[in-house]
């Protein structure tokens, strides 16, 4: 932290009376950013940056399952990762999950936000109710949908069956073809309200004049939406997609609670695979490697997105 700019601030200020005594070195006084930023920096370095470097270091060791010793072998885990079919399956599931959930949550969120964007009585309450799913612990949400989607006594699955929308012999979460959809349902229920909240904030901040002008010119509501609302919301939409996308990519809670990556590996994502390697195989170096690989994919994908859609913070 360099002090030139901060110092100029204090120097310009006329101080009433005598100049303050300099007891402390300047960078320890509150005029300097250092004391304001030191605690947070220390915490992030100790519990964020150091573990990350440690994980990288760990990924260069090969674990011997019998002696439980880690032997230095820098290419072992990364080579294993490339050749591991489960990793590729998990990448597929992760992207499928992220992209599906993101598109559904975004469209649904925007539609519901438009629906609830009204000043009439009662809409405030509806908007408040809409935020409630957000604060349910994801693990609890997982349990909730596990109960509701249960093949024999779940209210949703029996409802679908009795409506003839789902064959009774294939429980949703226990069939490899539909398990991911079941997990997605929990995610969509929980996080569509997040999109609604952000879109509502965006809609409420829009200027009124362009819409009035458009109405005078005889624009239809659809034209107003696609020509005015959508372009003006584009920045906040991009930001919401980025934040939500990064979270979706590291999906763990729902998968762990609802299907535990199963049936077989039908819902295994990168994070849940790393968890399995950690808990079941106790292969810590390989678990670290998979986690770092996940981080790498997050960075690459989100940078691409930021470049492509010119997201600014």
């Amino acid at each position, binding site marked *: 932290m360099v002090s030139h700019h901060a110092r100029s601030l204090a120097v310009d200020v006329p101080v009433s009376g005598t100049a303050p005594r300099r007891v402390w070195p300047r960078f320890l006084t509150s005029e300097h950013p250092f004391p304001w*930023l030191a605690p947070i920096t220390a915490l992030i370095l100790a519990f964020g940056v150091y573990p990350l470097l440690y994980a990288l270091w760990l990924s260069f060791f090969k674990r011997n399952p019998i002696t439980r010793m880690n032997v230095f072998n820098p290419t072992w885990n990364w080579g294993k990762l490339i050749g591991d079919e489960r990793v590729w399956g998990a990448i597929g599931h992760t992207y499928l999950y992220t992209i599906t959930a993101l598109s559904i949550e975004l469209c649904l969120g925007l539609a519901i936000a438009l629906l609830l964007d009204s000043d009439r009585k009662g809409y405030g309450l509806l908007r408040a109710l809409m935020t409630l799913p957000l604060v349910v612990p994801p693990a609890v949400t997982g349990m909730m949908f596990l109960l509701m989607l249960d093949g024999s006594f779940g209210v949703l699955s029996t409802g679908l069956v009795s409506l003839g929308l789902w064959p009774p012999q294939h429980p949703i979460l226990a069939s490899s073809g539909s398990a991911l959809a079941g997990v997605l349902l929990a995610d969509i229920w929980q996080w569509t309200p997040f999109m609604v909240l952000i879109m509502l904030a965006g809609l409420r901040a829009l200027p009124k004049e362009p819409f009035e002008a458009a109405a005078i010119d005889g624009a239809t509501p659809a034209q107003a939406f696609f020509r005015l609302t959508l372009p003006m919301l584009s920045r906040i939409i991009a930001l919401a997609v980025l934040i939500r996308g990064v979270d979706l990519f590291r999906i763990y809670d729902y998968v762990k609670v609802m299907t535990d990556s199963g049936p077989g590996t039908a819902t295994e994502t990168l994070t849940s695979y790393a968890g399995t390697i950690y808990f079941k195989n106790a292969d810590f170096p390989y678990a670290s490697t998979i986690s770092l690989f996940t981080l790498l994919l997050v960075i690459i994908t989100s940078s691409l997105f930021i470049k492509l859609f010119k997201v600014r913070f």
Partner: protein
Amino acid sequence: MQETFWQRRLRDVAAVLVVGVFMFPLFWWALTSFKPTSAIFDKDGIVWFNFKPTLVNYAVTMLGKSRAELAIESGNTFGVGGASSYDSRQTIIDSLIVAIGATALTVLLAVMAAYALSRMRFRWRQAYLNWILSQRFMPPIAIIVPVVFMFHYMSLLDTRLGLILVDTLINLPIAVLLMKSFYDDVPVDVDEAAMIDGATRLQIFWRVVLPMVKGGVAATAVLCFIFSWTEFLLSLFLTNSIRTLPVKITTFVTSTGSEWGFIAALGTTAVIPSFIFILLVQKQLVRGLTLGSLKE
């Protein structure tokens, strides 16, 4: 664009319907928590309201009664077995300590850092802000294995303090971003006026600016509380005997069957504090959530 009478009615119906669909799982969850086991696992179909409501599920999870005690109290001794592992009182206390501790630490650190980032001009300010925000992009799983090792050496494994520290790390980026956007809304003139009066930065921060962003601090604190309260992965990896609520609830699913009544009761209890908090700071949160992205 004025809506006609029927358009308005249509919007009302659709809005209520959509919100109703989203409320249904919560309603079903709360309903299940009052059901006796026989009504949850009914062979003849789904039981809606034709059951005798019971508080057994809450008595077991919240009061630590074993099923044996309850059965004896009600004069029924059929099929009783000890079930004290469903007692969740300690879990709730632990979860509260972790969530409140992490919230306090996060807010303290974020309020300080965001003030400097909003008010002071120094080189690398933007780069430093980006560095903090970039922590948000890191999947917790990427650091969890080394953190387990570190905590093992530091005797922080399976402690509330350890969990507080890691939860704080995860919450910091969003807290700093939120607080900075609240500070940015306070005009710099306020600081300058106080500075001319000879106040130090610390005095300005404590006496002038902080009181002006009280609402923002509350919103940030609520968000941090909810994040820690609902956190699952870190607690799963880092604790064993000290369990936070989301992890505890998953232990009710056993190979011999799931105790859905207990799960629903604990799950219902788990969402109540967050519901209250989020409704209290709704306004600030909606404003803060745009994260300044609407300002040009």
